[in-house]
């Protein structure tokens, strides 16, 4: 299905890691954090140049025809470098929605724009604002009228289009909404890992028929959320790798009571547990991505397991990375706390451990699928 070989993926990973280590250093990252945008426009252009934004976009639309496996390589690097750019909403959610549910015109318009770095898109679906009114769409001639609220819209402020999930006569529908449209307002904030997010209010916003995704149904959304959950797992894998590496380095160099902290057995065993947890999360994540890539029957099962185990690992590693660093781990100036907060976010996005375990438990109670072996 994918145009990539394993070798291609390895090369992609190498170039991503090189970029993260060389070009996305702490200083640059702090500058990005403090910028108004909250992400690097210059980096976004670089990603486009290097072809990363198009890895999972069809070749007909200017991409290189990869799929989830390639996106996972990208997201893992994003986790390693704590990248601030809107990869998840643009490449996984929006490009995914348009690729799978868009019309020929929508694809031709937006996919090349995404691949070339000319357009940033996001998707608004979760109702994160308490007691927010859900978004409803009604038909008005050829157009649609959208009203309601959506919370936690990632990079809502920067998006050229927000794909809004709305209820259309009892069915799920997706609409491409320009943030500049009349009746759209956005309230800006930062996520716990410093990313720009927004709440979206739609007050009788008129959307043209051509901006409704013809295939934007509930099934598409579920499939997108599954993909996004795995992308988040891959990002967490990357973040855990580096959090573990930084912590291990610290154990080896920081001295206390005349010896390195890492010479004590308790920190040693904890570091072993953190390493095993990261290894386990990585293994189940790649297994789930492999299954989802070929639409194997056990893909749902493995995805739930991946998200749950990766959430557990993220918590252990995030918390213990701070604990083992001691005071320095509590400072904003040092990067380990940023890994902690990124992992907090990833743990919860697209379903926390509890949600996925409930599902997995329900399936298991109903009978253990053989497909899983």
């Amino acid at each position, binding site marked *: 299905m994918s145009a990539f070989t394993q070798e291609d993926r390895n090369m992609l990973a190498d170039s991503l890691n090189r970029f993260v280590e060389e070009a996305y250093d702490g200083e640059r990252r702090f500058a990005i954090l403090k910028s108004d945008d909250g992400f690097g426009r210059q980096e976004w252009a670089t990603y486009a140049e290097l072809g990363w934004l198009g890895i999972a976009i069809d070749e007909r639309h200017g991409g290189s025809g990869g799929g989830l496996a390639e996106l996972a390589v990208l997201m893992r690097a994003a986790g390693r470098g704590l990248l601030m750019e809107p990869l998840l909403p643009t490449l996984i959610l929006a490009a995914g929605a348009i690729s799978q549910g868009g019309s020929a015109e929508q694809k031709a318009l937006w996919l090349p724009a995404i691949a070339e770095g000319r357009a940033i898109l996001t998707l608004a679906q979760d109702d994160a*604002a308490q007691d*927010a009114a859900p978004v409803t769409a009604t038909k008005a001639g050829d157009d649609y009228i959208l009203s309601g609220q959506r919370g936690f819209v990632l990079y809502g402020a920067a998006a050229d289009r927000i794909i809004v999930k709305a209820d259309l006569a009892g069915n799920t529908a997706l609409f491409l909404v320009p943030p500049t449209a009349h009746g759209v307002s956005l309230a800006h904030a930062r*996520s716990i890992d410093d990313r720009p*997010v927004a709440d979206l209010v739609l007050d009788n916003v008129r959307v043209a028929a051509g901006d409704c995704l013809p295939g934007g149904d509930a099934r598409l959304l579920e499939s997108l959320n599954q993909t996004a959950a795995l992308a988040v797992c891959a990002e967490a894998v990357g973040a855990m790798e580096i959090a573990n590496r930084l912590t291990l380095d610290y154990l080896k160099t920081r001295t*206390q009571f005349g010896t390195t902290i890492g010479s004590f057995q308790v920190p040693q065993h904890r570091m072993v547990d953190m390493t095993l947890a990261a290894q386990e999360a990585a293994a189940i994540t790649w297994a789930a991505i492999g299954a989802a890539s070929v639409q194997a029957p056990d893909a749902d099962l493995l995805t739930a397991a991946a998200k749950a185990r990766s959430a557990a690992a993220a918590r252990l590693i995030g918390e213990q990375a701070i604990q083992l660093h001691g005071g320095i781990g509590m400072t904003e100036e040092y990067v380990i706390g940023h890994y902690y907060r990124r992992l907090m976010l990833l743990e919860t996005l697209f379903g926390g451990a509890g949600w996925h375990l409930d599902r997995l438990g329900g399936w298991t109670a109903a009978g253990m699928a053989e497909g899983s072996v």
Partner: protein
Amino acid sequence: MRDPAIQAFRADVKQFCEKNLPRDIRDKVLAGQHLAKSDYVRWQKILFDKGWIVGHWPRAYGGQDWTPLQRAIFDDETSKAGAPWLTPFGVCYAGPVIYTFGSAQQKERYLPGIRSTDTWWCQGYSEPGAGSDLANIKTRAVRDGDQYVVSGQKTWTTMAQWADMMFALVRTSNDGKPQNGISFLLIDMNSPGVTVRPIISIDKCHHLNEVFLDDVRVPVENLVGVEGRGWTYAKFLLNNERLLGAEVGKSTRLLHQLRQTMADIREGGRPLTDDPHWRRRLGELRARLLALEAVCNEYLAAAEAGSTPGLEVSALKIMGSELIQGITGAMVDALAIKGLVYQTEGLEPGWQAPLVGVPGAPGMIREHLHDRATTIYGGANEIQRNILAKAVLGL
């Protein structure tokens, strides 16, 4: 604990807080918002007028000779009422060391300002190379006539940005065991050579500081007690505070807040208080809190009966800090995706929650992030377990 006199005292404190704790201050505390220095001072002066801020001091120094139990009840009830943290640097740390080991002149000069919170103190213990391993401090104090010349760096210094005075551990000798060359010095924060640099912590807040001491001249009369005995005085302080480490009052307040948050947040149309997982988790935290209270009460009863302080501080510190993290962790989990927006503007008093996020969430997230430090500061929990293994278990 069911003694009527004790219950009456508890009721008194509670009632006093209800009547006298300024509403604006309480609201900030309950919302987890930033407090100004003036908020702390205002409340501590109210307690000073009542004679309670130094209730645990001896009558000779203006206190009320409270027993450890009274002290604990006072701490509990003020915390639960939503009072600000009773900043301990003056009334719990500097004060008791000065009245116990200080000179007559030091007592006269410093105790009044400590009692009234007219002088703000900070604690100069930790250094970049000496956190949990305090005996390793490097800040040097070299005698030069009537003065010590102090050079070095202190770190993790809470509220140093507001401080008039610092009590500090400094190295006056490198001979013998590392503990022996440490002295206890009172340093005027306005002295030339003192520089305070903020440390922003992962909750994006400014509680902590680095304090650079660059040839700071400190009069010899600011040495407390005997040169080289500073370690002993610092340990005295630790014992002094041993029964408050459990932070039962704070945990009680946070658990109330968790319960409220659970009732406020709905998933699938039902509040989290109706969700079996959440009920059990709440039950578990409640059970741990009740058990921690029971442990504290046993220690307090022993202290009332005159038993010498033991290693309770380590045990209570471990249990108390891990419980607080359990509660704040549950808060963040309860907020779930709604808690992933961290609006630090929401920590400013008077802020009106806009559409984004959940009211109260910024304060809870701040608390959670901040409280990752509870298992680190004051000797990391790993160190506390080492202490217990050695001293209690003989391992």
